[in-house]
Structures are given as C-alpha cells and as structure tokens.
C-alpha cells in the first residue's frame, strides 16, 4: 500500500455561485436546491485512489465574499490548487472571478487553478457571451459544471488533482 499524500484545495467565488453545492456533490454525491449560505470556512475531505498513490483532498469551502484579500488570501497559503467558481447565470460573478485570478497571481503565481463555470444545467439562462468566455479561456482552464446534474464535477476535481501532483511526486510516493 502506497503512502497517502495530503493536498489542500480552496474554492473561491461570489456568494451563491454553488461552491458548497459542488463540494457536497463531489464528496457526498448530494445536491440540495435550498441555499444555505456558508459562514467563514468549512473543510471537507475526500480520498482519491490514483494508480500509484492515494491522495487525501482537503477541500476548503470559503464563504463567498466579493473582496479577496487579508485573511481570505492568507487561507490560500499551503494550498496546492485553487478552484475558482462562477455562476453562468450571473455574468458579474465571472467578472469578479477574473479580478480574483489576477489577485491570486500577484501573491501565488504558481498554484494550479481551474475555473468552474457552474449551473450548466441552466445554460438557457446563462449570461456569458462567447467573447467573454474566449477571453477567460485564454487565461485559465474552464469547466462547465453543474452541481445539480453532476456534469463535469468529478472531472474538474480529477483535473485539479492531476495538476497538483507532479509526476516526480507520484514516482516518489510509489517508490517509498
């Protein structure tokens, strides 16, 4: 049995975009229509078995606030990956995410990041133009997710995990 690697992931995004829902879908397979605002920080764990090692993901779900500095920025310390989450039905949440991406870049330029454009089940109500999307996609890898249907949720978490663990790290762990 190979050793377990612990990895911290933070979810960042405006309130109500679906951060908690994405975590809940991913970790527990549960989705709820009811909105329960997160206060502060809530951490969930999920173990993933990769071919050559086991990863324990520590998923930090941060309450959606529009500013991204001070404490919230400090909580990113020690994170191996950041999932930015925006709500496709509210274009301003995507704009905010772009500011957050810039801000993160100033402090932690080499943390792997993904953008989850959530509520893909409501695509007929999305407010994101193709031009806007192209612009975002040129800066960060984007997944269109739905915490409701589960669309791309596993894939997004798998992808960030893959980005966080370097091949050397895997080989090392396998070797130990």
């Amino acid at each position, binding site marked *: 049995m190979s050793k377990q690697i612990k990895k911290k992931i933070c979810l960042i995004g405006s309130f109500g975009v679906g951060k908690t829902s994405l975590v809940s879908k991913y970790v527990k397979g549960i989705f709820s229509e009811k909105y329960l605002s997160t*206060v502060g*920080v809530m951490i969930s764990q999920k173990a993933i078995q990769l071919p050559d090692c086991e990863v324990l993901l520590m998923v930090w779900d941060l309450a959606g606030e529009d500013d991204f500095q001070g404490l919230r920025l400090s909580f990113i310390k020690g994170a191996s990956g950041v999932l930015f989450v925006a709500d496709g039905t509210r274009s301003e949440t995507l704009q905010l995410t772009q500011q957050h991406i810039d801000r993160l870049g100033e402090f932690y330029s080499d943390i792997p990041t993904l953008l989850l454009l959530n509520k893909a089940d409501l695509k007929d109500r999305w407010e994101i133009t193709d031009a806007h999307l192209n612009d975002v996609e040129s800066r960060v890898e984007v997944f269109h997710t739905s915490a409701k249907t589960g669309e791309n949720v596993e894939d997004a978490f798998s992808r960030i995990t893959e980005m966080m663990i370097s091949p050397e790290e895997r080989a090392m762990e396998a070797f130990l």
Partner: protein
Amino acid sequence: MASDLAHQFSDRSLSSEADPLAAVLASLDYIVLERGGDGAFHLRGTAPQWFASVYGSDIKSAIAGSPFLSCFVNEIALPFWQAAPAAPVRSGIWTEVDEQGEQHFEAIAMNSANSPPLLVIQSLGLRYEEIQMLTQRANENALEHRQLGREVQKKDVLLKCIVHDLNNPLGAVLLNLEVLAMSNDEEVQGAALLALEAARRQRSLIKSISEVFSSDLSRLGRDRECAEEVSELVRGAAYVVNMHLNQALRRSVSILLEDGLTGSVSGNRKVSGELEPFVRAVENLVLNALRYAPRDSTVTVRIAAQEKGIQVQVEDNGPGVEPNLISGLFDPFIQGTTNQGAMGLGLYFCRMTVEQWGGAIRYDQAPGGGARFVFTLPWVVTDAHNSDGS
C-alpha cells in the same frame, strides 16, 4: 439560558481554584492557550467542555489535527506574534464536522505585555445561528434585488421594442390618411378623418406608454423640483381645448374652459409641475371625457385657485364611471366595458404625472351624473412670493 450559564459557571469555578477570570472565560466557552518559548501551547485556567469533545485532551495534537487551526496558527498567528502588534487578529468563523454534527468556532491570536502570546478559541454555539441567518438574509436580498433589476431591464427592452414596432408603421398610416382627408369625395374624407383621429390617439397612447413605463426613476426625483407659472398652465389647458374643438363639434359636443385664474392674484404664482406633461395629462382627461360625452353635451375644463394650490377639473355629462371600477380607476390597464382600449393607460399616466409633482388626482361624480376628474398641484413657495404676499 441565563440559569444554565450560572450553573456552568458555578461548576467550573469549583474546578478552577487559581484563576477565577479563566473560569469566567471557560463559562463563556472560550479556551485560553498560552504559547510557551518552545512553541508548545499550554492551557491557561479551565478548558470548556466542548474542547475535549471536539479536539480531545491533547492540545498539541488538537491543533495539528484541525487543518483550519493549524493553518491559522502557522500562517497567520505566528507571523503576528513575531511582529507583536497590539491589536489581536481573528481567524473568522470556521466549522468543524464530527459525529455530533457541525460546530462553529473562532480563534483569536493576542499579544499581552506581561505574558506569553495567547491563542483564544471560542465555540460560537447559538450565536452562530444568528450570524448565519444575517449572512443568509443579506445574500438572499442581494440575489433578489439583482433578479428584480433584471426583470425591470427585460421589461424596458421589451417596451422599447413594442413602442418602436408600433410607432414605425404609424408614421406612414398618418401621412396617407392626411392625404386621403383632403379628398373631394366627402365619404372618403369623412372616413379618413375618423381614421386619422384614431391613429393620432394611438400615437399619443404609445407615447404615454413609453413614458409611464420607462423605469428611469431619476426623472421622478427631478420633476418634484420643477415649477411652472399658473398662467402657462392655463395657456396649456386652452391649447388642449382648442386642439379638440373640431373633433368634439363633429359629434355636437362643445368644450368649455372655465378659467378662474387669469387676472386673479394667483395668476402669476407658481405650482409644482411642467407644461408639457401637464398638457398631456389634461389632454388624456379631455379625450376620455369626449369619448363618453353624449351628443349635444358639454365637456367642461375648470381651473381654479385653492388654498394649497390649483385645482383642475374635467367633467362630462356621460354615464359616469361604473361603481365597481372606481376604486382601481387610476391603476394601469383598467378598462371600462364600453371604451376602445385607449383608457387603459391614460388615467394611470395622469396619476403618475400629478403624483410625481406632489399633487393628487381623484374621481368625483359630476352633479348631472357624468364623470368628473379632479386633480390638484401644490403651490411652490418661493422667497419672492413670500415677500410679495406679506
């Protein structure tokens, strides 16, 4: 709740002989940890009950075992203790989940002059519910506000499209009807004039729809401050009467303007209002009256001064408003059973116009049984007037 606290307090004060203050803190669900020179934390005073049940008895492994606490201690508190500023730093709320469900905490790193650095952790208990509820409400309100804004925007766009699409062909219709109205054939001319009248009414209706339903609220605030001389408004009312004389005559209806203002002291005072919307409001009422006025009757427009402002009445000898319609008469889209639809917005427009100037509009039964619409506009008190009037 209070007695519960007192009970806990007495319990704990027994177990803490040395430091009564620490016992108080414990009863408030704070745990106070002191950071020794070796970097290890030591309990100061008494540990509240929650601590052992959430974190166990070993403080070191408690902190190491909580990803949040260890992040706070290592990334935020340590640099803080080293820099030693006076004001404490708070972790913000975090949630731990165990078999008992969710529990919520906040940690505070402190420096004090004569003791080692302190780490204080509080269990929020019921206070969390309050904070959560406030956050939730704020977020939900923001979402709802946004949703409403979007709906209003959508409505505005739709309105502009409708107004645009309705107006475009109307230009051509009016132009051609005007040509037809000059025909030598009396029958054609008569029909063209009728059609022309209807088309003009439609145009003014479209205009008022776009005005009333445009959500440009900044306009409203501005209009409150506008003032117009009474003599101007009388001129406006006369203009409306003259405009519709011919139309009325064709149905043997006469329109009469009773001007109680010109030449009076009030004639050069100002009321809150603006000429152009005032004219449209009066015109709406006059057109409405003409629609219901029977043949050989008179529509009367009265303007008079009152103590608080001017009063404008528009009266006809028609059937009056059906009693069941009176209460909602000035709401949008009200329709009598006999009208042709133009009434839907006219009275609503009048109300919005008059109310935005601080005036009021109402419906009265005319003495002969017809309809009488009455609106008032308040005097604007200017310094000039005050010194004149004294």
